[in-house]
């Protein structure tokens, strides 16, 4: 019968191709595993050494008057919470508005000059995401020196430094979220006789909201572990400080650094506290990263 001649020839790769396939598979698996080794090692070390002091005292006491064992990181946890919160309050609106301006205004402008300026702003934002955090710290240090006594340290100065790092992260992430809001929806709003700002506030922002929240959370996770700028402008203390505007304020990363750097007689107690603080910090960052992803994912699901 002619049937065999019509049959599709088998698409079986030759021996050479199959061998190359096996080699490539092995190489890629090996790379993935090697890449995971440091990560697993880091987590393992942090957990195994940090668990020892993961106790109630760690979360309920500061280091005021503590020499040797005991003590906790409540002052540092509180400092990190306050400094990061203030940084978010400063940076999130700025980043969001920058992204809104880029997507809703600059990209849609009929003037080529404005569109070009939008491109410049984008470039600046991109460059700023790569700014070394110590430079942000130094910038704020210089600024503080201009308005207050040189070397004045405060929580809000730390927030300012973190905000500088956070703005471009939030701007970039929100921009991507806003770009993904379907053009159909904007046109649908405009076609109903809506002014452009109402289309933005009533259609674009609500549609993008989960993504924008995850952009901000991403920004928080980016700065919550920053050490250098805080060491420089927020300083360190062993005591509680609830006032962002005056006095040195401890933070978790700086706490780790100072525990490790300034060990007392009982070095093991200091090491142990540093590891526990490191573990808590890793959990924080992980929490924010996972939260950012979950919020972003819930958005896609509701859109279906």
């Amino acid at each position, binding site marked *: 019968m002619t049937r065999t001649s019509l049959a599709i020839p088998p698409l079986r790769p030759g021996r050479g191709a199959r061998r190359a396939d096996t080699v490539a598979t092995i190489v890629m698996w090996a790379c993935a595993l090697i890449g995971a080794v440091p990560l697993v090692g880091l987590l393992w070390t942090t957990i195994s050494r940090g668990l020892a002091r993961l106790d109630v005292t760690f979360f309920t006491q500061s280091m005021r008057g503590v020499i040797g064992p005991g003590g906790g990181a409540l002052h540092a946890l509180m400092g990190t919470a306050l400094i990061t919160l203030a940084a978010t309050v400063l940076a999130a609106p700025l980043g969001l508005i920058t992204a809104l301006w880029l997507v809703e205004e600059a990209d849609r*402008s009929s003037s080529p000059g404005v569109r070009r300026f939008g491109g410049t702003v984008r470039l600046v934002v991109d460059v700023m995401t790569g700014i070394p955090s110590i430079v942000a710290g130094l910038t704020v240090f210089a600024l503080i020196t201009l308005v207050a006594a040189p070397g004045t340290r405060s929580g809000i100065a730390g927030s300012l430094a973190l905000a500088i790092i956070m703005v471009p992260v939030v701007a970039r992430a929100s921009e991507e979220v806003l770009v993904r809001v379907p053009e159909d929806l904007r046109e*649908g*709003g*405009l*076609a109903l006789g809506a*002014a452009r700002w109402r289309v933005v506030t*009533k*259609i674009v922002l609500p*549609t993008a909201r989960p993504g924008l929240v995850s952009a901000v959370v991403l920004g928080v996770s980016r700065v919550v572990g920053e050490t250098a700028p805080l060491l420089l402008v927020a300083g360190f203390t062993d005591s509680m400080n609830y006032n962002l505007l005056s006095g040195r304020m401890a933070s978790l990363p700086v706490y780790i650094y100072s525990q490790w750097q300034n060990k007392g007689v009982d070095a093991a107690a200091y090491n142990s506290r540093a590891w526990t603080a490191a573990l808590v910090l890793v959990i924080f960052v992980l929490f924010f990263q996972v939260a950012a992803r979950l919020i972003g994912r819930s958005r896609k699901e509701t859109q279906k």
Partner: protein
Amino acid sequence: MTETLSDTLLTQMITPPPSPTLRLDHVSAGYGELTAVSDVTLDIEANSVTALIGPSGCGKSTLLRSINRLHETIPGARVSGHITLDGDDLYGAEVDPVDVRARVGMVFQRANPFPTMSIRDNVLAGTGLRGKRLTRSQGDDLTEQSLRDVKLWDEVKDRLGKSGASLSGGQQQRLCIARAIAIQPEVLLMDEPCSALDPASTAAVENLMLALKTAYTLVVVTHNMAQAARVSDTTAFLSVTQPGRPGELIEAGPTKRIFNDPLRQATRDYIDGKFG
């Protein structure tokens, strides 16, 4: 010949032709250097359905989007000529495009209900977006009336609080039509409103067009010849005469005549499916 002429005259004396609501006068539109559609002059009668047909790239969508001034929201877009609605120049210097779009509603190719809004809020979106406040009962009435007008009320009345995205494609498109007519425009533009719908939903939307023309003036862009023949009173055929040239209006007239006895060979070829 003289008999036909006197017949026409007689008809005109008995029933004067309705004055054109929408008048396109030497309209050209494009983006930057590119002119998509050139020099279209067309009168569109009130309470009729006008179909814009023609091959892809002839500029019929651009022309449609020029009528509600949506075209100009794209950077680099430009429109020249005059478009008047009931004598008002829609491109007048002091005219706010936002107000034009409230008088000239639009339904898009892809149904685009607002995903964050409920069915009810979608219907009322136009009033909210225009900054008008409705009382609860006014909102209820407008929702029910608009959804009844698009024959969607019975299907959704028990789930007005659900997301508009939960509806089927055809229902979503009818929801978008309800949303467009809730602000009571004078003209309703439809840009290939059925091209993403199944035959049953298409029939529903076509019936809706016939029902809506008693209250609105409809302009429909369509690729579907049969649809143009079924729903429209007037057909305008646009085409590109030479590659690289902008689209032009080849001819316009009563749909029956365009389909049965077109004046131009290009129209006949397109309708017969010889091209495009």
